[in-house]
């Protein structure tokens, strides 16, 4: 009897104590510039930084996923080069951060976050569709929940309104690591938050059904896109632009593909409507967000229409009749039907709910319940896939030359609950160092 063949697994690289001792900062210790001093190595305006690690998890969606004994050069907040130690020469004047046995991965991206702001402000339900409401004024940068999230390796989030209505309003894409709005802003609007069914009906004064809600939602989309078309036509014809209507402004971003529809959509019928209505009928960029339950049954359609699925916080689905008694992994269900862009989110909602720092656990659970991890599917699901889905792939989500240097320094497989995050860099600046006090 031979040991069963196994898909490659990431292993722990050892105990933290021994690894921490291996972290050597050469030639000087402080990497981040504090108190208005000269910019630190790697930060914008500072000298270059060379990060040396046992393993670089590049996590590219299509391309290499790991570099062993790697060197990563950072300059002006961006990734300048990625390669194996023997292939890449560290230019003169670069500060070297030798991480010994530690690994480096891209910062993680959570496309379903409610904790970057004050939750109580996030769910104003005026109408069934409120495309004009914005998450922006609720933001509380650097709040304790977000600080824990950074310590869990989450560097980018989509802060979105709640699902009390079918359209909650503008989401906003934020960095997690800094203390001010300006520093944290990645993109606004980050998305239009759509919730097709499941929650909105509970807040409505009557209990609308899916047919009415989708009729109403479609109406808002059609009016909004007509509004956007008015601006396009005015620009093309050199005529006066239409009057601004704050309720519909986001549709100009959507029509120009400058943002996406992030859809709280879970069950098969609802996911199917997301794909057919928002993507196929209206032609907008959309992704399944907060995907759970039996939505995976629409996986084939999602792949055909190129609609990514970001899944969580429910990673399994079980009904003795509908899953034939199987405990079905949701990510595995989408994967089995051919969907390639599969990612994970937390739906972090505060102290009592799931924490944003557990984003990696969502990926781990997706893998546990059947999602293929032989080529780092789990890691890509919290890095390059959400970056692609949210239109950030040119900025973050992988260790690729030209992207922002959002890096996490870890003791092993980033989605293993046993792995700890030792440092976090954002735009080349160190925003967390566990040696100064471990937060997660």
């Amino acid at each position, binding site marked *: 009897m*031979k040991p*069963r*063949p196994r*898909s490659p697994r990431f292993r722990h690289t050892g105990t933290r104590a021994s690894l921490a001792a291996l972290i050597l900062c050469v030639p000087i210790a402080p990497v981040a510039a504090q108190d208005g001093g000269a910019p630190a190595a790697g930060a914008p305006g500072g000298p270059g930084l060379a990060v040396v690690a046992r393993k670089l998890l590049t996590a590219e969606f299509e391309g290499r996923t790991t570099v062993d004994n790697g060197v990563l050069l950072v300059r002006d907040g961006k990734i300048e080069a990625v390669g194996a130690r023997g292939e890449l020469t560290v230019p003169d004047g670069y500060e070297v951060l030798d991480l010994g046995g530690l690994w480096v991965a891209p910062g993680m991206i959570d496309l379903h976050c409610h904790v970057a702001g004050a*939750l109580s402000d*996030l*769910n104003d339900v005026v109408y069934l569709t409120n495309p004009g409401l914005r998450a922006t004024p609720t933001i509380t940068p650097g709040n*304790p929940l977000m600080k*824990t999230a950074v310590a869990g390796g989450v560097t980018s989030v989509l802060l*979105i309104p*709640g*699902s*009390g209505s079918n359209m*909650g309003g503008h989401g906003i894409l934020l960095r997690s690591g800094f203390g001010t709005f300006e520093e944290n802003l990645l993109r606004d609007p980050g998305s239009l*938050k759509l*919730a097709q*069914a*499941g*929650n909105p*009906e*509970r*807040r409505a004064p009557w209990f609308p059904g899916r047919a009415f809600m989708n009729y109403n939602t479609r109406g808002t989309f059609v009016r909004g896109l007509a509004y956007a078309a008015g601006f396009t036509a005015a620009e093309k014809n050199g005529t006066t632009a239409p009057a601004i209507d704050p309720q519909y402004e986001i549709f100009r971003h959507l029509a120009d593909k400058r943002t996406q529809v992030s859809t*709280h959509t*879970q*069950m098969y019928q609802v996911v199917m409507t997301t794909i057919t209505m928002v993507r196929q009928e209206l032609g907008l960029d959309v992704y399944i967000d*907060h995907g759970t*339950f039996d939505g995976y049954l629409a996986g084939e359609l999602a792949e055909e229409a190129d609609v990514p699925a970001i899944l969580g*916080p*429910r*990673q*399994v*689905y*079980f*009904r*003795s*009749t509908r899953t034939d*008694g*199987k*405990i079905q992994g949701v990510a*595995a269900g989408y994967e089995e039907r051919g969907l390639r862009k599969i990612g994970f989110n937390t*739906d972090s*909602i*505060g102290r*009592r*709910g*799931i*924490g944003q*720092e557990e984003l990696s656990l969502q990926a*781990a*659970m997706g893998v*546990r319940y*059947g999602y293929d*991890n032989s080529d780092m599917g789990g890691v890509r699901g919290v890095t390059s896939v959400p970056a692609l889905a949210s239109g950030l792939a040119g900025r973050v989500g992988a260790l690729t030359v030209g992207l922002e240097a959002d890096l996490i320094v870890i003791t092993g497989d980033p*989605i*293993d*609950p*046993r*792995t*700890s995050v030792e440092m976090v860099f954002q735009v080349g600046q160190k925003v967390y160092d566990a040696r100064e006090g*471990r937060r997660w």
Partner: protein
Amino acid sequence: MKVTLNTFRLIGLVAILSWAGAPASFAFAPAQDGDKDEKKKDADADAEAEEEEGPEWFAVSGGDVYTGTGSILRGATVLSKDGVITDIGYDLFVPEDAEVLDATGYRVYPGLIAISSFGLFGGSADLKNTVDPFSNNMTLALAAGITTAVNGSEVAKLKRRAIDDLVMNTSVFTSLSFAKSNPAGKRSLREKLAKAAEYLRKYRQYETDKKSDKTLKEPSKKGIDSTALAVLRHEKRPTFSANDRTDLLEIAHLAQQYGFRPIIRGCREGWTVAGELGRAGASAVITPRDRRPKDERFARDGGSSIENAAILHAAGVQVAVIPGSAGISLGGIVGRDLMHLTIEAGFAVRGGLSEEAAMQAITTVPARILGVDHRVGTLEVGKDADLIVTDGELLHYETFVQWAVVHGDLVYDKEEELYFAHIRPRPEAALAPETKLDAGETEEAPEEVEEGGDEGEGEGSDDGDDGDDGDDGDGGTEEEGSGGGDGEG
């Protein structure tokens, strides 16, 4: 992977008897008294009956055995007789009628212990009257590697399909309150302990003095709290639910003053007073993933810390781990209930606890706290054959329990149940050993699970489509159907 049933070398009956010891040899003892026919007949009948029933041997062979005592025996065999481990090692004599589970290429660990649970036995806290050994939950708990659990006030084994001999210990927790939020309770406990201590002093004096003065009366127990007395006499270890550092410090001091060893549930801020807790000989039952920011009105340390388990352990506190939810949840939000006990222990490793200590936190430490460490928690000769066979590291998130054995009976086989068989199926479907079930029963097994499945659905609160809708609420809470209000997106 094929079953190597009866492939071990054949050995003579005499060898078995001499090796296995008296109870077996009794069965084959020739009837000495040939004169009395009746007795001879009886004896023959007895012998026959014994021969039919015989001792039940179960061997798990070829796996890497993680005994939990610090040793790893690679490719070893664990042999048990009538549910008790008789040998662990290499080249063992395995009786030819033994069931043999070929675990080559797999890992063998002691069964895990849930120091708190609800619903694992298919019923309520009233184990005796509500146990359902065919329930979904029991199967799923075994699939999670749990073979022993606290249910109500009892420690019991997850003996699937069995209702007898489940309970190993009763009244395992003696809960006391000692918190600054309950000053009256605190004052009362101090007084009870002081009186009980005073009584014990008097009693000792009485024991000494009565040797010289036979007329002395035993000191009166009137007004002495029996629980306080039991604690001071070390008959019971008291359990406190405490998270606040001041409360923890007070408990530690009280314990040191009166010489008892507290069990502390929660212990969130234990890391800030770990030394005191260690000196008090405390045991802590913690949820490593517990997350509560510190009170920002204070500059001092506080709140939860991912390093709690590691810091407490380093200070000499015995650390047991329990997830945030001590039930089985099929609502979909995975990773925080008893189906993921090993994942929770993994978070302790994240905070710096060694893998070994994390494993102990779900095996030996709870066994000790529950007073059942003479039977379960490690794989040692003389202990119960409660073990699990996994396809990888115990704490790895991809690892599944392939087989679970309780009291020498195979009670769970991943490939035989519908729940997880489809996830990374065993390469060459390794067959279960021929169990005691006859062929018909084995074939019916899926049906039985299906029944369980229906029941499981009923346990959740969302039946059918509409229910699903209601539950679409991305509640932050774990329990299904709670919906989490509508505040979330």
